[in-house]
């Protein structure tokens, strides 16, 4: 009973955990509105199952475990819903020359790189916009692996995918990102 009372102190919940949970969500989903929705859904779900909280872990750990579930659900949704309609660029022939570069997608030499590789805000913006142009699930996995530098096992566990699945996504994301940077940064 006492535990329930603590949990139902909603104002404290938000003051104490909302920022932490929002930060946790946004480094994974990279969309501010979506992260806010996930945090809100987590609080509602927490409220609904408050009586199941046994006090074995801290409130924050318990809430994060609910949030993790919400993130997996979101990943599954984008994986199945957009799976078929995904705008994926093919780079390799799937006909006679299976697995070889498609002629029109072959990497091109890059322009003056030393001048272009100065680390500045413009470059950051371009990198970010190229990641943003990826299908959502690619962007999500790529960010977790490359930008947040999570371990492969951790991502697989969090998103409930296999490691070969992860590497295929990383491979597709990187081929697409290389092309995007070539078109919009190095050779534009």
């Amino acid at each position, binding site marked *: 009973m006492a535990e329930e009372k603590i949990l*139902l102190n*909603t*104002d404290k*919940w*938000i*003051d104490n955990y*909302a*920022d932490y949970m*929002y*930060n946790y969500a*946004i*480094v994974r989903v990279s969309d501010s509105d979506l*992260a*806010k929705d996930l*945090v*809100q859904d987590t*609080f*509602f779900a927490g*409220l609904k199952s408050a009586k199941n909280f046994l006090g074995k872990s801290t409130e924050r750990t318990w809430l994060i475990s609910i949030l993790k579930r919400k993130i997996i659900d979101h990943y599954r949704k984008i994986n199945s819903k957009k799976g078929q309609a995904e705008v994926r660029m093919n*780079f*390799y022939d799937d006909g006679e020359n*299976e*697995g*070889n*570069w498609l002629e029109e997608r*072959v*990497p091109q*030499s*890059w322009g003056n*790189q030393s001048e272009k*590789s100065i*680390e500045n805000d413009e*470059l*950051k913006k371009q*990198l*970010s916009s190229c990641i943003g142009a990826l299908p959502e699930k690619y962007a999500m996995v790529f960010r977790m*692996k*490359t*930008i*947040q*530098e999570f371990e*492969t096992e951790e991502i697989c566990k969090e998103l409930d995918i296999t490691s070969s699945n992860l*590497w*295929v996504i*990383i*491979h597709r994301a*990187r*081929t697409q*990102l*290389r092309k995007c*940077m*070539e078109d919009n940064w190095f050779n534009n």
Partner: protein
Amino acid sequence: MFKNLRITCDEATMICDKSQYRASSLLSRLKLNIHFIGCKTCILYTKQNVKLTHLYKGYSHSCKGEKHTLSSEDKEALKKTFKLKS
């Protein structure tokens, strides 16, 4: 035996991508190097991929330090909705 060492450009670039995270095996790196003998395109891809890894590293450093927080308006709105539910 040599047949087993032959890979497509798709497979070669996959190995190259995994190598960026130090996740490729010695055998696959050997296959990649054999593939390089006949494929200038994949050599170019690899060179550019290494360059991109360097750029993403810089990007990662500037992003990882960021702490994302909710605005006080967002928190107030959240509290309001939450009160209605509880």
